[in-house]
């Protein structure tokens, strides 16, 4: 079952998912002990490569790596200028030289962690790439759901919001489906693509979605920064049409539904303030479970051993392009 990288949920087998969720349970038990560290990754180095700012995911991975006794390095990424693929390639060369064992990477470009994975022998963990995937988020979501529903088969999760741009929606719905959970989408017509997976029902009307009888309502963060054009008129209207308003919270409480959100929450947009005190909100559980899931992932992956002795990637590319000059 050894894997070098965790790039997506799509390619994970059900047994691998079950294994990671089980491991996460064991790691979570550690948290109640006074000594929370174990030596699993003693002498290994984990490099954090975050091209997009993210306090939450970044610190979650950092705590997870440290609890496994790994050495954590933050690779300084200049958020203002280094976003193009070309500079990433130079970074990859530097990473080779640093001989790091694990690379945790977040980037705005879909597919970029895969590119790094193919060019290094380090284990690469995708911590979010563009609108593609965010596999550890999906695993921690599944773990959180399994804590409430040990056998989640047949349970229903309604994912609400910007499905089009959401890597969380892609990864989490893929994973939940692999576990036998039913998933549906709700959101503005401009943000719930008609050509998404055919196995997922799509709603654009809140009442119709509720009539589908979800067990969990999963709210996505509204990311205005990802929208190059306007997808809905304003956040007030969004809240009114797709958000958890006070009135809707009362209905949700009545029905005993759970609420999830990958964070950070835009209060008054995805949900009203009162949700934060709702007893069936799993939002803080998700944050807590992020650490044990990421420990399980780091512990599970197997870095590809020694870096092969070879000339630098760029030198190789340039050599091959000059070799064919007339």
């Amino acid at each position, binding site marked *: 079952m050894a894997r070098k990288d965790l790039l997506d949920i799509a390619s994970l087998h059900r047994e691998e998912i079950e294994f990671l969720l089980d491991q996460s349970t064991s790691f979570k038990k550690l948290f109640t002990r006074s000594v929370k560290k174990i030596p699993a990754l003693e002498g290994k180095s984990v490099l954090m490569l975050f091209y997009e700012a993210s306090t939450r995911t970044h610190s979650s991975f950092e705590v997870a790596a440290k609890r496994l006794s790994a050495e954590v390095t933050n690779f300084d990424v200049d958020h203002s200028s280094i976003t193009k693929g070309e500079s990433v390639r130079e970074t990859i060369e530097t990473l080779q030289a640093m001989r790091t064992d694990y690379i945790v990477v977040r980037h705005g470009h879909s597919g970029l962690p895969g590119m790094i994975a193919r060019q290094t022998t380090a284990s690469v963990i995708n911590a979010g790439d563009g609108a593609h995937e965010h596999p550890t988020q999906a695993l921690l979501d599944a773990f959180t759901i399994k804590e409430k529903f040990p056998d989640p088969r047949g349970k229903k999760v309604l994912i609400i919001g910007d499905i089009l741009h959401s890597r969380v929606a*892609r990864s989490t719905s893929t994973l939940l489906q692999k576990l036998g959970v039913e998933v549906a989408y709700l959101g503005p017509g401009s943000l719930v693509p008609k050509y998404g997976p055919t196995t997922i029902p799509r709603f654009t009307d809140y009442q119709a979605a509720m009539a589908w009888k979800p067990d969990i309502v999963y709210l996505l963060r509204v990311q205005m920064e990802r929208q190059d054009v306007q997808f809905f008129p304003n956040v007030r209207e969004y809240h009114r049409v797709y958000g958890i308003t006070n009135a809707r919270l009362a209905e949700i409480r009545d029905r005993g539904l759970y609420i999830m959100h990958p964070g950070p929450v835009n209060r008054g947009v995805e949900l009203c303030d009162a949700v934060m005190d709702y007893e069936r909100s799993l939002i803080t559980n998700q944050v807590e479970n992020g650490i044990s899931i990421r420990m399980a992932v780091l512990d599970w992956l197997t870095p590809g051993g020694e870096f092969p002795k070879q000339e630098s990637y760029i030198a190789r590319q340039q050599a091959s392009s000059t070799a064919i000059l007339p």
Partner: protein
Amino acid sequence: MLLLQNARIASENSPVLVESDVLIVEGKIQDIGKSLTIPEGARVIDARGRVLMPAMFDAHVHFRAPGFENKETITTGSEAAINGGITGVVMMPNTRPALDSATSVATVLDNAKRKARIPVYTSGCVTKDRQGKELAEIEGMRTLGVKMLTDDGDTTSDPAVLLRAMQYATEFGMFFASHCEVPELAGPRALNEGVMSYRLGIKGSPACAEEIIIDRDIRLARAAGAHVHIQHVSSKLGMETIRWWKSRGDVKVTAEVAPHHLLFTDEHIGDYDTNYKMNPPLRTQADCDALLEGLIEGVFDLIATDHAPHTPFEKAQDFISAPNGITGLDTALVSLYHFFVEPGKFGWDLVVKRYSAEPRRLMGLPVPTIEVGQQAECVLFDTDAETTFTREFMKSKSQNTPFIDQTLKGRVDLVILGTEILLER
């Protein structure tokens, strides 16, 4: 003197190959017939089983010079053409500086005369620096032989500017070539909007971004009495739009299709393979099928590669950062043979008509045929041999093509242009 014995001669007028000897003297076809007597001093080539056809002409290539000689030069580009059996090309004007004046066109044509072994023609910009604002030096470019006007990858977005350009340039006998795309719909990334773009998490370009401009530009051409040539159509509805306009018969419209749009779909992008990143993007199997139908039916007058070289360095980036484009000259004829002629989807007559005769007619050039009295401009193609597209095989400076290191059926053995044998394998 060159005697090709027992060649199977292809022509645009008949799907049947005619076996014959062909005698070429001083660059002209002097005799065709069974068992010709071997003249003294003639070189004899046993062409038995091989196809002899008029050489191809590619009306849509990017040779990147001036400005991007690291990607391609007129020399390497024209050698790639020869390598694929092509003896004439039309360059697109998206060089740096852009080909928008008599001066810049003169430089390119002068270079081409010295650095290419085949005729290299160029198109000119519609607007200055392809900005879509001020008209380029249209008549000045015409005096140097420019016939085709296009802003290439940058669709002239203001219809009023294009309409005026059409009214103006048509008076000089020039025509327009349109890369059809509404930029606001297409976005910066060349991927079809659909199941695949959703799965990959990349903003897609919907087919309607192309279809709207196909329709718009034909309407503008109709209004101006101009001739518009629609470039590299990628979608089913795009093909059907052209078909409908052609059936009306009240506007001069021609169109082309590129081999890669007939062959690949967005599914091929799979693991973010940048060799499949091109504009217009690869669409679905239904689109491929419709394009093939359009080609066979004649909705597409010609095949053109949109040969678009980029260095390995640039293409080795992630999908979003990598530039759009695929090379096509080295591989065009062999891939058409392998995927279409050999499996019987269309015949040699279609290849000759759509890839040799029609592109030359579009450009107002003489059309070579394998007939007595004609200049020898032909290709000898071995249908039994194979070609492996190694980096060494490719003559283009860049090899951004999915065919790299693939082996396909068929091989270009001989390319003759007048008195010169440009290529012999």
